């Protein structure tokens, strides 16, 4: 070791590795419950966990520290389990409770609080590198990925067995009957960095897969696999072949398009089916009534009146195409000269009446621009194709064109399209405004579609079979961008329609809902039917027809309750062949590999079984999930037991909690780790049960005070002779500050929030003006877990206090001390605003200065201030008069000091 700096650099090389057979490594051995050791001081231990700790202490000639006092325990436990400070009432209640199980009750209360999930979800989110954006140039948002965060919170709160927790993330979509939660859990695969403009797309795809494989191996198995991507692992016997075998579990995953998809809410499909059936019956009855009444009323009109109405039929119609063609290249306008030119092979088939046009996906008919202000376009459509586009998408120009006036790059346009899952969508540009029908019209029957647009109000409406599908307010300008309109396709560049069109008509005004219904139901008088019936003799039939129109308008089609999620999907039931990629170069294919688990673990061969019929998925991930969550997997349970210990004691029994291999640290207490892992399995993989076990141990309850004699023997506290004091995490600190000033919101779940950022921080973004969102002050005071996680722009208070870097799995947070932390907590906008709110709270809640000081300190430290301390701040308040501070202003400065104290920021 020639040089001091190479010492720094060579952590990995300073490992002493015993000559062991590969499978003899402690972490890869089968899990067995070790015998509980005998201890000299048997009376000290509260449970078997303590006996393991004590045996280690006794062997080293150490004594366990005394238990911490009740206040310390309560503060420690509350922060540990919920990330919050205990309230005044909670502190008083615990101090007053002298029952032997007083602390047990505290543990139960904390575990029952939903804030427990908020705290513990964060640990997992660090490990899986949760972020809400992609990184890179555009750093786009991952839509609805916050649902994954909420799912993790709920899983912890619901004490989801760990195996189930991991399985849902790995393969929730492949379960026989997945819930929405199971699908949301697979958002796990969409958390990483993602270059939307890669220079080498194939390489980038394997970089993404590497991120998934590597994170899975580290997070769930404590295996550091990444190096084997390019060469056989130097320390752990993981050959490159094993890496690519492991990778191939994921190789069938469809590359992300980062589009959310709408899935039915739990139970919604059944509910919806019932509602739709009731709706159909009700509608049929009204339609029958309307038809009967309209026929009667029509019959009562004089013959002359009927003739005059017939003559009006085409008034307001700009063009009408019945599709009864005699020329294959021309679509005849039956009321004027605005004939259409046929491109491709539009053949004639039997239509709704007479003939119809059949489009096969690359045909279209071009029409002059018939309308641009107010208009209605209506037609009959029939198809058994689902239509292109994504289910969550309502942009007409991403579907198959029916009637299109879209011009790429222009905004003053409009269109109607046949979209994913047999939906009809329509919309106008500038601003883009879209409407969509429910899915399911690809039933091979004729459907009447109408789209109306009123220029003066910008209102647009879409109807299928006379039934309103929705309306919205769009722009009010002329939609004059398209020089031509297209039937049966989108403007060049877009997708063509596959199906039949008939009876296309353009009106120069937005028809009313009743007029559209009359058209669709083919009532006598057509579009004029409502007006005619309204003007008809006021007899019972006329009125009944009008009231039926009203009933029809009032009847709302039930909506399928859907949830927008970002989840995983595979490319088909058969996965592609996998290959070793020589030296990590994706273009250099080596030997073929099949999915397989790392051989070091002497694993079984993966059992890959077909997933449920219809699902385009290979079942590979299910096989992986089953192996990882099997009770005899040697790593999964050790890794989890270690993480639990880490987050309760400040460090894992294995300090390198993502790496149980030979480059990682060895456990300080190997038997204890195995015992905990077995215990975990026997307790039904319940984390809450393990929290109870750990928090009720004497080991966890030890004081953190100095013991020079012990420190001399074990300076690093390897043997746990005391509890290690720790600084609050970034989230705990920010939340605690909001908590003491009374503004912290404990609201759970939902989209992330955007606390205000200083302009200086926004200026570091390449688009400072839209780099960050805006939240109300109440929302900005949500718990830190809910602050938006943007890869290229971190909230500065969280960032400076060592929030996890989100580009890599973060098993252990750094805990740095930097002057920038002092600057942000003394001078920063957040600290200043919080100190002001804190002082206002004290002014409100306590009668005089000494009482305010006592209350403030109690809120921060969960103890009574000493007389000396009260006097110190009274003196300070007096002294600050020199700087022109009245009592309120001086109190605010006291508050600022208090949230900066070590006693506040550290956990004893």
């Amino acid at each position: 070791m020639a040089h001091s700096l190479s010492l720094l650099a060579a952590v990995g090389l300073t490992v002493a590795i015993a000559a062991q057979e590969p499978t003899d490594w402690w972490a890869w051995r089968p899990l067995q419950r070790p015998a509980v050791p005998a201890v000299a001081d048997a009376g000290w231990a509260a449970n078997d966990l303590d006996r393991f700790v004590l045996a280690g202490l006794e062997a080293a000639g150490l004594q366990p520290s005394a238990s911490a006092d009740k206040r310390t325990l309560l503060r420690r436990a509350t922060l540990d389990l919920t990330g919050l400070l205990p309230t005044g009432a909670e502190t008083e209640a615990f101090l007053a409770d002298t029952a032997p199980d007083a602390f047990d009750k505290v543990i139960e209360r904390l575990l029952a609080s939903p804030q427990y999930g908020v705290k513990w979800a964060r640990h997992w989110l660090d490990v899986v590198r949760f972020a809400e954006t992609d990184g890179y140039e555009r750093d786009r948002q991952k839509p609805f990925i916050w649902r994954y965060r909420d799912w993790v919170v709920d899983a912890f709160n619901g004490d989801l067995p760990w195996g189930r927790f991991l399985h849902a993330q790995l393969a929730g979509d492949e379960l026989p009957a997945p819930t929405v939660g199971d699908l949301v859990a697979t958002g796990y695969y969409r958390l990483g960095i993602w270059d939307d403009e890669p220079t080498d797309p194939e390489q980038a795809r394997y970089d993404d897969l590497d991120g998934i494989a590597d994170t899975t191996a580290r997070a769930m198995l404590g295996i550091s696999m990444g190096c084997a991507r390019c060469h056989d692992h130097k320390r752990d016997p993981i050959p490159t072949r094993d890496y690519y075998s492991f990778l191939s579990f994921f190789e069938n995953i469809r590359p992300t398009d980062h589009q959310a998809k709408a899935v039915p809410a739990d139970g919604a499909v059944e509910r919806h089916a019932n509602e739709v059936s009731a709706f159909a019956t009700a509608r049929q009855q009204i339609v029958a009534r309307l038809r009967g009444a309209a026929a009667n009323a029509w019959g009562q009109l004089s013959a002359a009146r009927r003739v005059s109405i017939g003559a009006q039929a085409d008034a307001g119609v700009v063009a009408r195409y019945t599709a009864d063609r005699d020329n294959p290249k021309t679509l005849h306008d039956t009321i004027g000269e605005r004939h259409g030119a046929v491109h491709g092979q539009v053949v004639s088939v039997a239509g709704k009446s007479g003939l119809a046009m059949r489009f096969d996906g690359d045909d279209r008919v071009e029409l002059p621009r018939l309308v641009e202000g107010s208009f209605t376009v209506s037609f009959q459509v029939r198809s058994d194709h689902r239509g292109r586009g994504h289910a969550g998408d309502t942009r007409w120009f991403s579907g198959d064109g029916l009637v299109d006036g879209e011009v790429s790059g222009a905004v003053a346009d409009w269109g109607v399209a046949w979209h994913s899952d047999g939906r009809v969508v329509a919309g106008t540009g500038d601003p883009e405004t879209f409407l969509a029908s429910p899915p399911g019209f690809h039933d091979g029957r004729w459907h009447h579609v109408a789209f109306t647009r009123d220029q003066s109000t910008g209102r647009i409406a879409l109807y299928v079979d006379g039934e309103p599908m929705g309306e919205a307010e769009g722009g009010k300008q002329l939609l004059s961008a398209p020089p031509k309109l297209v039937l049966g396709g989108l403007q060049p560049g877009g997708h063509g329609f596959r199906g039949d069109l008939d009876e296309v008509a353009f009106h120069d005004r937005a028809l009313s809902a009743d007029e559209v219904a009359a058209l669709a139901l083919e009532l006598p008088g057509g579009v004029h039917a409502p007006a005619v019936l309204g003007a008809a003799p006021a007899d019972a039939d006329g009125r009944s027809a009008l009231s039926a129109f009203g009933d029809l308008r009032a009847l709302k089609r039930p909506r399928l309750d859907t949830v927008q999620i970002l989840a995983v999907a595979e490319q088909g039931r058969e996965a592609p062949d996998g290959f070793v990629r020589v030296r990590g170069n994706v273009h250099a294919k080596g030997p073929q590999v099949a999915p397989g688990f790392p051989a070091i673990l002497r694993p079984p061969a993966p059992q890959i079984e077909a997933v449920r019929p219809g699902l385009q998925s290979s079942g590979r991930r299910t096989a992986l999930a089953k192996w990882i969550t099997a009770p005899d997997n040697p790593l999964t349970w050790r890794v989890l037991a270690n993480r639990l210990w880490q987050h309760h004691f400040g460090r894992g029994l294995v300090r390198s909690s993502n790496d149980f291999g030979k480059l990682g640290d060895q456990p300080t207490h190997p038997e204890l780790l195995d015992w905990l892992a077995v215990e975990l399995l026997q307790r039904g993989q319940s984390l809450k049960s393990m929290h109870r076990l750990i928090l009720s141990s004497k080991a966890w309850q030890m004081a953190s005070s100095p013991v020079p004699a012990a420190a001399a023997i074990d300076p690093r506290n390897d043997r746990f002779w005391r509890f290690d004091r720790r600084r609050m995490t970034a989230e705990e600190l920010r939340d605690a500050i909001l908590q003491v000033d009374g503004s912290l919101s404990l609201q759970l779940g939902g989209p992330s929030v955007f606390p205000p950022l200083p302009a200086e921080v926004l200026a570091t973004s390449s688009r400072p003006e839209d780099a960050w969102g805006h939240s109300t002050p109440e929302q900005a005071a949500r718990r830190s877990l809910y602050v938006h996680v943007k890869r290229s722009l971190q909230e500065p208070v969280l960032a400076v206090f060592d929030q996890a870097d989100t580009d890599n799995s973060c098993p252990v947070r750094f805990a740095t001390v930097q002057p920038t932390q002092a600057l942000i907590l003394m001078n920063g906008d957040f600290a200043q605003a919080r100190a002001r709110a804190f002082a206002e709270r004290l002014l409100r809640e306590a009668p005089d200065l000494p009482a305010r000081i006592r209350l403030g300190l109690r809120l921060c430290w969960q103890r009574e201030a000493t007389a000396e301390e009260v006097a110190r701040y009274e003196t300070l308040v007096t002294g600050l008069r020199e700087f022109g501070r009245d009592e309120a202003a001086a109190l605010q400065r006291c508050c600022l000091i208090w949230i900066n104290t070590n006693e506040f920021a550290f956990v004893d």
Partner: protein
Amino acid sequence: MAKPRNTFCGRTRREFLWQSGACFPALGMLDLLGRDGLLPAASGERPMAPRKPHHAPKARAVIFLFMYGGPSHVDTFDYKPKLYPLDGKTIDIDTKGRGGTKKQGRVVGPKWNFRQHGQCGKWVSDLFPHVGRCVDDLAFVHSMYADSPLHGSAMLMMNSGRILSGAPCLGSWATYALGSENENLPGFVVMLDRTGGPISGAKNWSSGFMPALYQGTVLRSQGEPILDLALPEGMTLAEQRRLLDALHAQNAAHLAERADDTDLAARMESYELAARMQVHAPEAIELANESAATRGLYGLDDPRTEDFGRKCLLARRLVERGVRFVQVYSGGNHNDANWDAHGDLVFNHEKHAGATDRPIAGLLADLKQRGLLESTIVVWGGEFGRQPTAEYAEGTGRDHNSAGFTMWLAGGGIPGGVSVGTTDELGNRAVERPFHVKNLHATILHQLGMDPNRLSFFFNGLDQKLVGPEGAQPIHELI
């Protein structure tokens, strides 16, 4: 080599702290504690204290002038006389850029004349008349290449050596390796363009998997230089001192019962360091004492050059005060707000070269006259260069080119008047002595006294290096 893993003695204090994670937070302050006698000297190496390099260094500081967006090498420093007569002609040529892979392109002849400068007779375009006069101090690398011709990944590569996000930047490596010579200022400083940051923002000065201690600090050239450095409105230093004293008294009482906890003491000291920063950082950016001649040298008298000139002058002041790594961005935001000349090459490059030519020459001259150039490496370049052909059917805009481009370095023991490597005769690809970005990084680390193939940080089961697991050699002609 072999040392037991689980003993403190086997490692330096710093490694021990990082490995231990949450239970030992005192990183930044150990050095100060050591200095102030709060910690016994034996207990720790000071993380940000200056440290001995691997070998005798030629340079102790770096100023990286980052021409974000990608300046065109054939219009600036890579003279290609054969390109002029081809202007407007469509030729067969393999290119890869934003517009994808192409086999043909319409040549855009260089839009500026080149002339020879200096003793070395270097050809420099009329975009950089002032820098042209400095060529005898500059070493040009004409045969640079990078892994990506797209901004997002290319920026990450030039700054962190990888196209994947998540690795520490060159400045982080420099401060990690060498510490800082002035603890009252950040060791790694970034100054951004007034139009905004580059794309991917803070990822370009991130410490990645290293502690945040080593990430770049954004320094503003006017107003409050560092986030939250300024006192809150209405507060004076005297009043703040009163508050800090009260805080100290409270913390001291708290510490009394926890006397062995160095983290608590370190955090106490961090408030004093912050207070000193409040004084030193504004002093560092205060230009009042700079003479009119100096200000003129940097172009502070011309609205066109004033902004970048101020940043260059600040860079000198920071280096003078012991800052290890300063990065100055020319260009920010998107489109023509930086060097990304897709549309009108002349408009774009006149604008950015016009804003930077005089300040850069001023910086070089000023460093030289103060004897600082000997120990300061100045690096000029973007994340890539530009193609010899047009991007679109019309216009003079050029697409990105990572297959061949020019960077230059000066100072820090790097010989001047030198040109290394060539691109082909159209400037399209590096052909002779091609150098990867990693070779550039290796060169800079080498001049700082570090062996680029030994400097590593253990993370994710690997001794991570700036130059990657394969390693990279410095550019021989430059060291």
